[in-house]
């Protein structure tokens, strides 16, 4: 009984069942028993959830609320916050469409709104490209590797290695490789081509693609490992049966393996989308989103303008926009695409 109760799972029915079956113990009135059980349940909840809740409130909710508060003020982060001027939603307006003041709207559009939308467009481009490029690559590699062969474990480790590397180390490595006089340039020259005009990272056209290449290298390993894990859960009976029925290798992948790892793919896509919106470390290590924001993301833009330009009110507004975006997209994804995956176990029961 103790174990059952301590598990915290449907404590009340368990106790009732125990009470009816108990012979040696004095029978207590059911109402008092239930009350004690309820108190105990709440004590358990407080004990187990409390510490996590305190951490969550202190390090997640409080900062979010603070940022939302800062975002309503004109504040340089140096002066006392009590002296900051309340300007309502003006910081949001400045980011989204250059502010509401006709005198400064033109200047703010160029100096603030355009870089904001540019950074945001990079985030969405990365989301789109992840689905269009990383997904097929990861799927192809995972399906190819989903069989027994010599060196399988080694191959998997190699594929996963970039994901395990810290962003700072990986970023520095690519900075060296893509240096104007680095290996990448020499290779390109070796085959008669040259690097982009402004260099690999800072060229206004090519900078973003260089960074997307690095992001793909860094994160495609995670997708492959996840897909392989999903594939290992697909019963071999199904594949054998299909093979006996005369299905080709391609038909087996297309009609059996890929549909059956659908939940894994959808979870990966979810992680990828949220990761793309919050993408920061790699672009920051490379060069703070580029000298002219060539590969800025909304997070690097927030950091640049909040900390490096000491525009804390505006930076906070960007942070809130980013939070709101992640939140809405996560909820929408949960409610639509992931809903059937979540509903699945209940139906099965």
């Amino acid at each position, binding site marked *: 009984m103790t174990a059952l109760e301590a598990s915290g799972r449907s404590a009340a029915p368990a106790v009732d069942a125990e009470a009816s079956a108990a012979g040696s113990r004095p029978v207590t009135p059911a109402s008092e028993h239930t009350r004690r059980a309820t108190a105990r349940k709440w004590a358990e909840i407080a004990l187990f959830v409390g510490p996590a809740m305190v951490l969550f409130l202190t390090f997640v909710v409080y900062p979010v609320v603070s940022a939302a508060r800062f975002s309503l003020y004109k504040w*340089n982060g140096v*002066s006392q916050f009590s002296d900051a001027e309340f300007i309502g939603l003006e910081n949001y307006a400045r980011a989204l469409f250059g502010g509401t003041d006709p005198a400064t709207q033109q200047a703010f559009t*160029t100096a603030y709104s355009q870089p904001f939308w540019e950074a945001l467009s990079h985030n969405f481009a990365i989301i789109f490209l992840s689905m269009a490029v990383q997904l097929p690559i990861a799927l192809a590699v995972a399906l190819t590797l989903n069989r027994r062969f010599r060196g399988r474990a080694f191959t998997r480790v190699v594929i996963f290695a970039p994901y395990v590397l810290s962003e700072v180390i990986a970023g520095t490595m690519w900075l060296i490789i893509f240096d104007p006089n680095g290996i990448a340039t020499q290779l390109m020259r070796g085959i008669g081509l040259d690097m982009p005009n*402004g260099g690999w990272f800072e*060229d206004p056209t090519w900078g973003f693609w260089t960074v997307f290449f690095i992001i793909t290298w860094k994160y495609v390993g995670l997708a492959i490992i996840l897909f392989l894990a999903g594939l290992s859960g697909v019963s071999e009976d199904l594949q054998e049966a299909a093979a006996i029925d005369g299905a080709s290798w391609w038909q087996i992948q297309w009609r059996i393996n890929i549909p059956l790892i659908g939940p894994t793919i959808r979870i990966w896509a979810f992680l990828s989308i949220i990761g793309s919106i919050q993408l920061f470390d790699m672009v920051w290590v490379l060069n703070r989103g580029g000298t002219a924001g060539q590969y800025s993301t909304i997070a690097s833009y927030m950091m640049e303008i909040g900390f490096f*330009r*000491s525009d804390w009110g505006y930076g906070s507004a960007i942070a809130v926009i980013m939070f709101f975006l992640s939140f809405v997209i996560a909820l929408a994804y949960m409610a639509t695409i992931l809903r059937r995956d979540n509903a699945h176990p209940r139906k099965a029961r």
Partner: protein
Amino acid sequence: MALLAACSSTEAGEDGSSADATDGGSGDAPVTLTWWHNGVAGDTGENSLGDYWDTVAADYMADHPNVTIEIEQIQNEDLQRTRIPTALQSGDAPDLFQQWGGGEMAAQAEAGYLMDLSDVLADDIGRLGGGVAPWQVDGVTYGLPFQFAVEGIWYRPSLFEEAGITAEPTTMAELDDAVQKLKDAGIVPIAVGASDGWPAAHWWYNFALRSCSQDVVASAGTSLDFSDPCWLDAGTQLEDFLGTEPFQPQFTSTVAQTGATSSAGMVANGNAAMELMGQWNYFVYEGFTDGSDEAIAALHDDLDWFPMPATDGGAGDPSAAMGGGDGFSCYVDAPAECADFLAYIVSDDVQRGYAEAVGGLPVAPAASDAVTDPVLQEIAQTTSSAAYVQLWMDTLLGPNVGGAMNDGIVNIFNGTGDAQGVVDMMVAAAATS
């Protein structure tokens, strides 16, 4: 016991713990000073500045047994952008901390974070002279510099010789001519670490310094008024200069100091002839040698410096120079000993030691005799003979407007912006602060 205490304090021992042991001996109440500075170890693990500050603190503690100094060494950008602002916000700030002067300091002073040193250190302010100006707001002194110097162009005489350049350029026309000769000889004329932003921006600063009168620049620091056409002219001059293609290929992907392909590495390795930089680059260049005395001597033999050449026309004085330095401020609630220790840091003897141990350019005029290197002497000479020295523009304007200015200038280097764009971004940032 008293004898022991007297003994150790007159010896000026370097060991902080011996000073602690004598605490009871002096009549003053014990005081702890916290000190944040940017003297951190470099790639090689060497930390001459941090080591020197340790010695200075130990010496001071030995003389003042009641004072304990707790030092924290923090990387420059972390210190300036994150640690100091948040510490000041929290009300739990270090007593003595790095101060770069200019707009950021003015904002800290306005918020009431800084100790007014005008009266307590009046003698020292007078002794240090005009170099203190960037650490003053409306005549009130909020910090004291221990180092100040102008920037100029570093160059390799052997490459100049190879290209047939016989004299250091003194005008932009002569610089253009030198650039052409170097290109003809197949040598990269000028290296710039535009990937880091500010090294590129310094070219614009120098054009603005020549275009704009002293008053226009100085008053822009507080008025944030950029309506004078000289600001636009600075960008136009930069565009013209970029048109002569004086910089290395892919300069927007080149960093300033890290690695052999950085702008400093290119000059140190003889892959570029010139670089516009502050006096600190002398030591950055040395970092690209193997560190042996012979290698450093060989580098010094083939490394020289000249002031930024004068442009034609413009309202600024042709002999004005861009410069900057490092100093310290006391937190407003710091104990009185903070000001006393700061006075000790900028005292003539400690300044001399700074020049000798770290190779920096001291602010105290009496310490200038400790600068023995001919190139550093030339920089010191240019600093003192300039019609006026203008503090780095980004420091002057503070992080918001200064940062917007740097971004706008880098856009010109990237080909994604123009002269008007720089002014527009400065005006926009000014409207938000």
